[in-house]
């Protein structure tokens, strides 16, 4: 897979490498951003609120005078902590669930499939909203909720991959030499369904970012005073009409570039896995 990704240089790789570059930039921002930004992303400056972009404030300032550029850079951290954590959790649970339901079949499969269908009968964002209204908004809860709603999706992918594997003869061959179900699931089948899982997880990461951002925008995700992009947009988008577009435009561009970057990487992985 790696060979295929980096091996020959073609236009397909260009988009992958471009995505990787964008992603790397934001990951770097997430790690060191808060330390290298020109101004404290949290410091208010009430006398300088809503200043347009200038040499001092490259992206202008927001309602309470915080430097938008610094906040956009620092804003990579919250989203890049919540989304990957949620995705990882979902990948873990989804893989387990998918392996068990796919391999065990029978009533376990039937019951779980129906439950999954109920969850999937609603828009993800609505499900997440319901749970978050009940639990109260916080980064942790957002992580758990996204993991919760992504788990069945990943489980479904894993399950169908496992079902396809179970049709292959190496599974009965393993049964014939008295392997335990655990061995068959994790040693025999899992390595074979790993590539689709990796692809699915990368794709999901993109959607996790999507969902975290959307939840933050609706006020149920990352909480103030975080410089999170979705939150910043939620806090400031009422200002658009007044002509203070810089308070939201840059955060929007940052979000877009991050999800597109992740998506291009996912695309590359998908091509390579094929």
């Amino acid at each position, binding site marked *: 897979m790696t060979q295929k990704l980096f091996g020959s240089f073609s236009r397909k790789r260009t988009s992958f490498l471009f995505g990787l570059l964008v992603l790397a930039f934001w990951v770097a921002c997430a790690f060191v951003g808060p330390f290298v930004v020109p101004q404290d992303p*949290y*410091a*208010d400056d*009430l*006398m300088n*609120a*809503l200043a347009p972009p200038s040499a001092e404030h490259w992206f202008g300032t927001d*309602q*309470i*005078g915080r430097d938008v550029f610094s906040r956009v850079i620092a804003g990579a951290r919250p989203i890049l902590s919540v989304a990957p954590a949620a995705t990882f959790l979902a990948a873990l649970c989804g893989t387990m669930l998918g392996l068990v339901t796919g391999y065990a079949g029978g009533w376990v499969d039937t019951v779980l499939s129906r439950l999954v269908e109920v969850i999937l009968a609603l828009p993800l964002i609505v499900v997440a909203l319901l749970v978050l*209204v009940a639990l*109260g*908004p*916080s980064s942790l809860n957002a992580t758990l909720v996204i993991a919760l709603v992504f788990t069945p999706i990943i489980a479904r992918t894993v399950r169908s991959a496992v079902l396809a594997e179970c049709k292959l003869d190496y599974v009965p061959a393993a049964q014939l030499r008295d392997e335990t179900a655990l061995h068959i699931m994790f040693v025999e089948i899992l390595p074979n369904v790993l590539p689709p899982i990796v692809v699915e997880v990368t794709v999901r990461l993109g959607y996790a970012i999507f969902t975290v951002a959307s939840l933050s925008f609706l*006020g149920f995700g990352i*909480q*103030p*005073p975080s410089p999170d992009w979705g939150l910043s947009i939620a*806090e400031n988008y*009422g*200002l*658009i*009409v*007044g*002509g*203070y577009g810089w308070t939201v435009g840059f955060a929007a561009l940052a979000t877009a570039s991050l999800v597109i970057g992740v998506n291009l990487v996912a695309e590359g992985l998908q091509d390579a896995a094929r």
Partner: protein
Amino acid sequence: MTPLERQIIDEHRAGRLSRRMFLRHASRIGLLAALPAPAAALGRPGATVRVASQVPSGALEPLTVSEIGGLAMLCQTGEFLIFDGSDLVLRPSLATGWTPDADCSTWTFTLRPGVKFHDGQAFGAADVVATMDRLCDPRQGSNALSVLRGVLSPGGTRRIDELTVRFELDAPNGNFPYYVSSDNYNAIMLPANYAGDFEANFNGTGPFRLERYAAKQGASFVRNPAYWGRAALPARTEFTFFTDQQPQILALEDDQVDAIVQISVQGAQGLLRDPDVRIIDIPASTHRQIHLRCDQGPLADRRVRQAIALCLDRPGILHGLFQGRARLGNDSPFDPMFASTDRSVPQRRKDLSRAMALMNEAGHADGFETTLTTERQQEIPDLAVLVQNACGQIGIRVGLRIEDPGTYYGTAQFGRSDWLDSAIGITDYGHRGVPNVNLAAPYLSNGAWNAAHFRSAEYDRLVAGYIAATDLSAQRVLAGRIQTLLLDETPVIIPYFYDYICATGPTVTGVAVSGLSQIFLQDAALS
């Protein structure tokens, strides 16, 4: 002339009471019952005035309405005994006069004759009794109960004759007329046989009658030809409901509406600069209360609370959050615009070195960690961040928890409400014509809204005295002591009182508003 009346007139003559304050106080005790209505606006009659309003988030039931969309609707057809205008002067409405007894424990109201409800019934004392009894009955879901509790009980309203009612209060109250004025927004007068179906016909006594109401969409009203007073100028008014401010602004700029009932500065910065928009800006006692829990943790130390209050750059906040459309708060509910407020109490200013010193004295030189819990409502999250940053200057590391209003208030009972249980919280308090309500529940030792868990027998005593005080100078003396006590103890920080802002198109005249999101259109006209 009663001694009270005489005292007020004397104060005014002596120059100790401005004309505005004089009017307010005189009106309070019914002295100016004959005061003429504000000068009639000079508009052409017959227009259709279109208004953008916040969508009422529930049924329009006068007994229960509490949110601004509903308030704006109720006062279109409903009227109060007394009208409390934007100048805080009480003007006769359905009552033509009111007088207290000597200790202000009994108030006698004279009703306006010849008033008819829209359905043709005549308005009289029985209607007042029924309405008031409903409002203070704990078995009803009355929103006014929190105001009337301890002031008026069921049965306390007596019909003397067809046009006279007497209120026998639970305790003396010098500001009682405010409790039955438009200040108490639930107190619109309904017929005695009211069956809980206000939304069906908006049966009131006002200058407009309901034409059509569609929940969540809008409402329209037409001039009431049988109105007791001067006929309304507009032939028709049309309300469109919006969920948010931005589309209202767009609608105004796009000339789809003639007025917006209320705008907040946040998100309206562009509109406020627009020369084509007329801004009606009236002072209101609407404020944010930052409570500091006095009974636990480092905040139990008065010096720590003072230190926090000393960190805030209040003028900066006024400028940054409100573009100056607000007044400095001095950590008590006494808005400078109240007549009884003692303006000689010094305003608290930012003083970091003093704050640091207090922290040192309190043994918290290295600061501490705490959490600020509040609700997502207008500028409050921004204020929370400002408080967080301010506290950071003296080493207090504040975590923020910004919640949905429903979550924040919870069941509004101690132990089951983030509002009442949090170490630091920011709570929104609406406009009141007098500080009475806001002096009691939020600060009294047994106060139901005492989120600061402030316990001071001294305070309780002072407030009881203030509420019972009938004459202004006595009120002012007590006010000064309350202000000083609250400044010293600092159970709460009240950084500002902000203005009520209404926006209209450039051709609109005669729109009247109150600080409670009530909009009165009988004098409105389009030129």
